């Protein structure tokens, strides 16, 4: 395995935000990810598309160590995920260290996964208070700011059950942002939404992309990919089939599998 810094030559090189090198993941004998190699730069928005079961979610889950790799290595911001490297050997991380790495990686789920027994505001405040141990008053102020940023200032005291799907997903985004992550992972954030609610969530994500957040977005919204993404990766059967400029891939896919997939979703 080559070191990121030495590979680039100069010692001042900034590592990419995400670097996956021959990442593989199997569940039993089912190989879900097969030697995935890709790179996401700082501030880049990458869209990940592909048919159901192609391993998109699994790849996202590997990035914040919700899933343990079977082979290969994965680093975020130059830091190896899940392992510590010393003297050329890998050491498994203690749960505490893994949790510390996850703090810096925000994740948004298809089914929102808001905590139903907490209000929108409490959902956003929970992790900064419990995980970072920040003072409540300070957290409350920034949580309210975040809710305002996703357009939900006046819904702060609503429980998730009393919010629409689009509103819930925006709260979920605010909750992830509350930890001030350097990387945001979105796993089909609009797939569970009514068509008329998709736009409000995508708008929040566009704003986030503009602010310079590094994002990996699994989505079927090709319009969003075209407009916002800096790069597009098409996965099928656990391998990256095609990757590159979104406009190019969407208008002129090279691979037959990409063509077949796009003809179905576009």
């Amino acid at each position, binding site marked *: 395995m080559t070191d990121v810094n030495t590979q680039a030559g100069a010692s001042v090189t900034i590592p990419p935000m995400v670097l996956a090198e021959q990442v593989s993941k199997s569940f039993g004998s089912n190989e879900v990810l097969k030697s995935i190699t890709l790179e996401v730069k700082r501030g880049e928005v990458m869209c990940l598309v592909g048919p159901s079961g192609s391993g998109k979610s699994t790849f996202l889950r590997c990035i914040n160590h919700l899933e343990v790799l079977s082979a290969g290595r994965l680093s975020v911001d130059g830091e190896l995920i899940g392992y510590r490297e010393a003297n050329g050997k890998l050491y498994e991380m203690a*749960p505490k260290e893994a949790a510390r790495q996850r703090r810096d990686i925000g994740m948004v*789920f298809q089914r929102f996964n808001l*905590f139903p027994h907490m209000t929108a505001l409490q959902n956003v405040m929970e992790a900064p208070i419990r995980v970072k141990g920040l003072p409540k008053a300070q957290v409350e102020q920034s949580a309210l700011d975040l809710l305002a940023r996703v357009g939900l200032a006046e819904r702060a005291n609503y429980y998730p059950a*009393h919010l629409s799907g689009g509103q819930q997903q925006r709260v979920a985004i605010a909750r992830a942002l509350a930890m001030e992550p350097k990387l945001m992972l979105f796993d089909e954030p609009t797939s*569970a939404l009514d068509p008329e609610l998709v736009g409000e969530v995508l708008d929040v994500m566009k704003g986030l992309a503009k602010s310079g957040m590094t994002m990996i977005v699994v989505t079927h919204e090709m319009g969003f990919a075209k407009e916002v993404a800096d790069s597009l990766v098409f996965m099928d059967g656990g391998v990256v089939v095609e990757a590159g400029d979104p406009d190019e891939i969407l208008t002129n896919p090279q691979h037959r599998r990409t063509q077949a997939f796009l003809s179905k979703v576009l």
Partner: protein
Amino acid sequence: MPIKAIKLRHPWRMVFAVLLVVIFVSVVVDAALRPAYDWPAVGKYLFDRRISQAAVVTLQLTVYSMVIAIVLGVILAVMRLSPNPVVKSLAWFYLWIFRGTPVYVQLTIWGLISLIYSSIDIGIPFMDPWVSFSTNAALSTFTIAIIGLALNEAAYMAEIVRAGLLAVDRGQEEAATALGMSWSQTMTRVILPQSMRVIIPPTGNEVISMLKTTSLVTAVPFSFELFTRSRDISAETFNPIPLLIVASIWYLFFTSILMVGQHFLEKRFARGVGDRQPDRKDAVGTGTGTLTGVVPVVDSGQPSVIAPPRQDDPPANPGGVK
């Protein structure tokens, strides 16, 4: 326009109902007239001081042992779901012992504890203890009865709590983990509060069941609760039947109160069912949604042990490296 039709008749239902009423009335009349029931004695002993004191002791046994059992049950359930294999097996072993032997046997063994361990020593093993008590002095039969009941009940509570924990959508644990919360934070802040809805109804059943199980502490032997007390009184009067009726009336009185309480608790916590996230395109804004975890259906009249929905699944990557 209302439909005009001749209602379907259920003649056998009527016959059956009449028959039942007749049987019931004759049993009641017969019972009222039968001297063996000795109703005047029932009236006399129902509010006898010794009996009402024993009723209070029965309540104390129930409350204390249930409180301990619930706390211990939560701990055991969380241990069983822990990613740590040692902790997990320890909890499994506890359940194996305490669910696998009759409570009466357990209570008898607890009663003999001072024969097995004559003193309780605190200190380093195989060294002179720092503090030492005589078991008989430290543990009254009342305390032993509570310990015996609580430790047995904890095993059942653990299964109830575990089913509750497993009924919480797995996405909740995932979301908490992704936020950087530790496993214990995830449990106490996210999973446990949500599992209450599933845990509370069967716990109500357990309380009612415990009220009746207290009658077994005579095995310890502890003799100041309702059943043993009424047996002891009847041993003096040579008139057991009215005292059994008296004890039954008291048990029925307490269980009725508990059933009413349970009814209200269940109603309160059933409200949470609709409070899940709207799943896919249904009911946006109304707050009804699909439950993703398997929620055991809890019916107030049913036995309280619920089958856990996912038996052998470990929690979704509880934050560690395999």
